[in-house]
């Protein structure tokens, strides 16, 4: 074997310099492809973070009969407090409900006049630990049958819609990112195959001079590694720049406060950066390996 580090280093260095066109082409392909993947993944993360707070809005309200007894109310209170699935409970008594009502209908004094605290139901606003809709439904229904409970109302449809929306958007962006990742891998492999094709004569000559397959392959693989690495290292700042640009655009806009929570934590940026690096390097190395091997059977 006798594959010396300095031989490989020298070989890779001079090849990268001499085949500038091919090197550039491969690096550009890796760069563009991975940048697309990175932006897609981070946008997805950002959207997920932005819509996280809607998830926090998921709750249900247990309305008691206006005429419910103290005992009935405290029984429900206890049950809620003891349930491990309940995160926090907020009790709204009749007076508080009346105040909310007057706030809500401040414009309609006629309506306020027609209502007294006594006819309004006291209620518990419950925030469950698990935000899953089905779990919440199951939990809420448990309380429906308790004595003194009038009705359990779940989070408004609008909130539900927003949740669905967010989930769908996130899923869409994720699938988009995955598709892009697949496309990137394909494109990079393609570029490497092409670059190898341009150098098939060289590989042939190396074989004829008595080089073993690994002797030929390793420098090409390291070359692929370097190209993948450089492409990824170029892609990472580009991705972070684009994401920060999107973030500033979204949080600046006054009319759209929906995505003001759009934020990508640096840990998430770091994760995607690692992903790009790993994909770039792996595709570079494995792609070169496969592509060289095709031309090794002289």
């Amino acid at each position, binding site marked *: 074997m006798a594959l010396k580090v300095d031989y490989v280093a020298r070989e890779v260095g001079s090849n990268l310099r001499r085949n500038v066109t091919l090197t550039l082409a491969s690096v550009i392909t890796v760069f563009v492809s991975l940048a697309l993947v990175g932006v897609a993944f981070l946008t997805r993360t950002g959207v997920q973070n932005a819509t996280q707070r809607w998830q926090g809005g998921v709750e249900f309200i247990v309305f008691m009969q206006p005429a419910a007894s103290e005992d009935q109310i405290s029984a429900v209170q206890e049950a809620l407090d003891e349930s491990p699935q309940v995160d926090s409970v907020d009790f709204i008594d009749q007076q508080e409900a009346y105040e909310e009502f007057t706030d809500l209908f401040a414009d309609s004094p006629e309506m306020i006049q027609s209502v007294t605290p006594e006819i309004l139901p006291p209620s518990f606003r419950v925030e469950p630990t698990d935000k899953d809709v089905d779990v919440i439904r199951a939990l809420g229904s448990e309380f429906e049958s308790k004595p003194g409970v009038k009705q359990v109302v779940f989070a408004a449809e609008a909130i539900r819609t927003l949740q669905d929306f967010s989930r769908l958007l996130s899923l869409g962006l994720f699938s988009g990112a995955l598709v892009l990742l697949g496309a990137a891998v394909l494109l990079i492999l393609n570029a490497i195959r092409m670059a190898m094709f341009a150098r098939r004569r060289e590989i042939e000559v190396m074989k004829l*001079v*008595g080089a*073993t397959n690994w002797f030929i392959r390793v420098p090409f693989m390291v070359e692929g590694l370097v190209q993948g690495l450089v492409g990824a290292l170029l892609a990472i700042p580009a991705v972070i720049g684009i994401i920060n640009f999107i973030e500033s655009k979204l949080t600046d806009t006054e009319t759209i406060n929906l995505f003001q929570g759009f934020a990508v934590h640096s840990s998430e940026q770091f994760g995607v950066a690692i992903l790009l690096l790993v994909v770039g390097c792996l595709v570079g190395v494995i792609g070169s390996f496969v592509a060289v091997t095709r031309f090794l059977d002289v």
Partner: protein
Amino acid sequence: MIKLENVTKIYKNDVVALREANADIQKGEFVFLVGPSGSGKSTFIRLLNHEEQPDRGRIFVAGKDIGKLSHWKVPYLRRNIGCVFQDFKLLPNKTVAQNVAFALEVIGRPKHVVRTQVPAILELVGLAHKAKNMPNELSGGEQQRVSIARAFVNRPLILLADEPTGNLDPSTSVGIMRLLDRINRTGTTVVMCTHDAGIVDTMRRRVIELDHGTIVRDQDRGVYG
């Protein structure tokens, strides 16, 4: 050292490049391969080098049947064979010195050996001043001499030379032939294709003549034709 037993090589289109060839070349021999253009000389060499495989017959190199050689052993066979290719086959992305050094690096020679051997051999073929040039910056004859230097540099057991003087002027040719002769005297088996009647007639070594793929003459101390 080299033995061909009923070797037939048929390219596609039914071109019979070598037909039932038999030859037995001893260690240390010097053999000229002559014959008209397209008679199968290069094919003969390519078969020894495992660049082509025979359709029929067996080929022994250094006692081994190279038809039975497993795939990964081929490079090790080639390391014992220096080859001057008719079309030079230089690595276009390496300088002259790197091209020659490559043959040493392939067999894992330490760096200091490479550093002394390469300039020495380039000096021998008269290309010391072109060491840093790329192959496409060389004249035809200079490229040919790089190819010769590369084939010599690792002191192979067998030297196959496909028209090594085709692009050289007579006096450079004589220099190369002296070199080949010297190498042969150290025990290296040399097989050389040539069209140069002058060289063959002067050297008077064994001559194998091919015609349309058939060995029509195998003569010790022969002449060109």
